[in-house]
């Protein structure tokens, strides 16, 4: 058997068992991992709900209407990503760029709301050090914020490449992956908004005190 002339390539063109690109599989697997990450933080929040020994309690701090606005903005940005990917695939670069810019702006608005909210909370004494509510609330929301910020940076990087002409319909997958990530971060926010804000907002002083401090 002669091996003369064999071209040895590394990459997907030789072995691709499923037909799905490696990058996309990686992103899905990563999101699966991230589910466990957020899941544990959310679990912590729920386990420590109504366990704070002192205030400020959720009813003193959370402002549902304001957060609803930022939630709405973030959810709408998901639609923007879908359109940005769609137009990129159709090589309508103008629209693709427009939607991408809009998504980035909406992400930044969301982050602006979060910065406002955090400073406001800190102002009224709700800090990560204040009590269990503060610790669980801030770690979860700030790490979600970190995810959003990372997403914004990623999208800016892609936008730059669109302007440079490096990101075209041929490698639209790169934007698609960022979009996948963006959707995931949005879905996590829906859960956070439901559990950390809507359900918790009315919590005040734990009813009957803590089970283990009652007898002391």
């Amino acid at each position, binding site marked *: *058997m*002669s*091996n*003369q*002339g*064999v*071209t*040895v*390539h*590394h*990459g*997907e063109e*030789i*072995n*691709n*068992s*499923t037909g*799905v690109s*490696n*990058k996309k*599989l*990686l992103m899905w*697997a*990563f999101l*699966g*991992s*991230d589910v*466990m*990450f957020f899941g*544990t*933080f959310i*679990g*912590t929040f729920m*386990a*420590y709900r109504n*366990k*704070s*020994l002192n205030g400020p309690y959720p009813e003193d701090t959370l402002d549902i209407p304001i957060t609803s606005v930022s939630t709405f903005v973030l959810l709408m940005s998901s639609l923007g990503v879908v359109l940005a990917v769609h137009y990129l695939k159709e090589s309508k670069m103008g629209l693709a760029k427009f939607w991408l810019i809009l998504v980035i702006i909406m992400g930044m608005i969301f982050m602006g709301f979060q910065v406002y909210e955090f400073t406001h909370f800190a102002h009224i004494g709700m800090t*990560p*050090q204040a*009590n*269990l509510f*503060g*610790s*669980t609330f*801030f*770690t979860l929301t700030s*790490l979600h914020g970190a995810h959003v910020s990372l997403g914004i940076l990623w999208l800016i*990087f892609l936008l*730059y*490449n669109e302007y*440079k*002409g*490096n*990101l*075209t319909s041929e*490698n639209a997958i*790169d934007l698609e*992956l960022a979009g996948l990530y963006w959707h995931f971060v949005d879905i996590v926010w829906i859960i956070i908004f439901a559990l950390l804000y809507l359900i918790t907002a009315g919590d005040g002083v734990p009813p009957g005190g*803590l089970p283990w401090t009652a007898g002391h």
Partner: protein
Amino acid sequence: MSSILGPKQFQIPRIFPRPMSHSGIWYWLGTVDHKKIGTMYGIVSFFWFIMGGIEALLIRVQLSQAENDIISPELYNQLFTMHGTTMVFLVVMPLSAAFFNWLIPLQIGARDVAFPRLNALSLWVFIFGSILMNISWFTGEAPNGGWFGYPPNSTIQFNPGNGMTFWVLGLNVLGVASIAAGLNFIVTIINMRAPGMTMMRMPVFTWMTFITSILIVLALPILGVAGIQMTGDRVYGTNFFNSEAGGDPIFWQHIFWLFGHPEVYILILPAMGIVSEILPTFARKPLFGYTFIVFSGAIIGFMGWFVWSHHMFTVGLGPAANTAFTLSTMLIAIPTGVKIFNWLATLWGGSIKFTTAMLFSIGFIAMFTIGGLSGVTHAVSPSDAQQQDTYYVVAHFHYVLFGGAIFAIFGGLYFWWPKFTGYMLNERLGILNFIIMMIGFNLQFAPMHWLGLDGMPRRIYTYAENMGWELSNLAATVGGFLIAFSVLIFIINVFISRRNKKLASGDPWDARTLEWSISSPPPHYNFVNIPQVEHIDDWWYKKYPELLEGSPKQTKSAKATVEDTSNVDESKIHLPDLSYYPLFVGIGLSIAALGVIYSYALVTIGLILVFWGCIGWSTEPVNEPHEKHH
């Protein structure tokens, strides 16, 4: 993430030129070759194996007699904490990763893993994370809260200083490395298989790697969260585990063991995979019940998520929870038992050659069985109330993790050494290595069963004279030194093999899977021709086509031989070029983590390194376009 490949590729300005040489230190620092990465994983984790072993020996010296005072209680607590942490996170996991790296692309017929640079990142993050954790020895504040880090004893309130902060940050950095590697191997195994290699034709080791990778990807984030929470508590004053602010110490135990029990299977499943490769090779029989072995592995991986509270039978969960976790724990014995019987049936009727690798594998079955059976006695939660936190538990998990994982890893080293290096290890020394390790291991850990049942708690730096524990402890210490001696024999063996240069053929054991169809050591592109896979153990049937049912005695083509690389035109080989960005991201991450302890300036420097590395990485083409083929 792979780069955006466009004609007008933007690259950030390079500070250093991209390394291009194929030897020397720059090559090793920039390599993205899975085989080189595997080798570095192996060397570094073997170094930590020796360190963890020295820690263990110091523990054993201190316990060799009653009321010994060679080692102070402070140092003792640091030693057992770092021994456990080192052996789990810096030895067994990365040694398994060394095997994953070396073998997975070879076993599935690929030229590399799916993301070679991500793979390099895992390596460097692991290396610098392990250094980060051990820097604490030099600051005099090594972690001292146990490898499980139970609060409140690990909180800043009861454990001031930086020791446990080093520990928790080290774990978080190592977690990044593990998750990155896990993701990489999931994609590699799903997507990079050679044509014809369906999932149910994959070697068992590949299967176990796949399951392990899924467990890593799902379990390590939980540890990451626990680590972030504890870092918050220790450094920034949050209240997660501060019992004075209402924080619940039991909550830490839940999340730690929710990670920790899948972690146990992360440690043992690769070992089971290794053994499942070695046994059929030296029995010259196919693995008995491939499907059963694969599925019981998958079931173990799945059920491992529902048993975590058996580490907490004595924390007062109540009879209902204890019953549930007792039953789920007992259930997991069934797929484990199935594996053991299948391995035995593989040997049954075989033509067994007792090489060192085979002896270690048989030793694995024998010792793992003991560990499994003592595990069942733990599952009986009422009697576990007597065993919990005693030396009986120490005996149990050393039978599983040393008699299990480490035996299998040594078997794997002897088995694949010729493939890794091209040289044979000395079998005579190998068998001596096995015998002494076997005796030493049993001498060290068998008496611990008795010690535990006789009421000796774990993690005590000394014990009173009248307790009746002296003799067993002395025996254990002697056993510990025998193990150290056997490891020394292995190291000597490695050096002798280097000097004697007894060359290995591509397929010295007449083995079964694809990695043996290429030369030893494999060329950097692995396969000249990507194999077309038709069976489980494809290489075996290519060598013995007459074994296939329904095939004529004389097949058309001659029996397959190891691939010949002499005529390969190197100029036509395209493999990813070297990249130093993973190295810098790895360094940056550890510097940032160190900064959490010492100063925000370090955090900033670290994050800048990470950011620069990531941007550089994602704009760097896989191959330099202007480059002439080397």
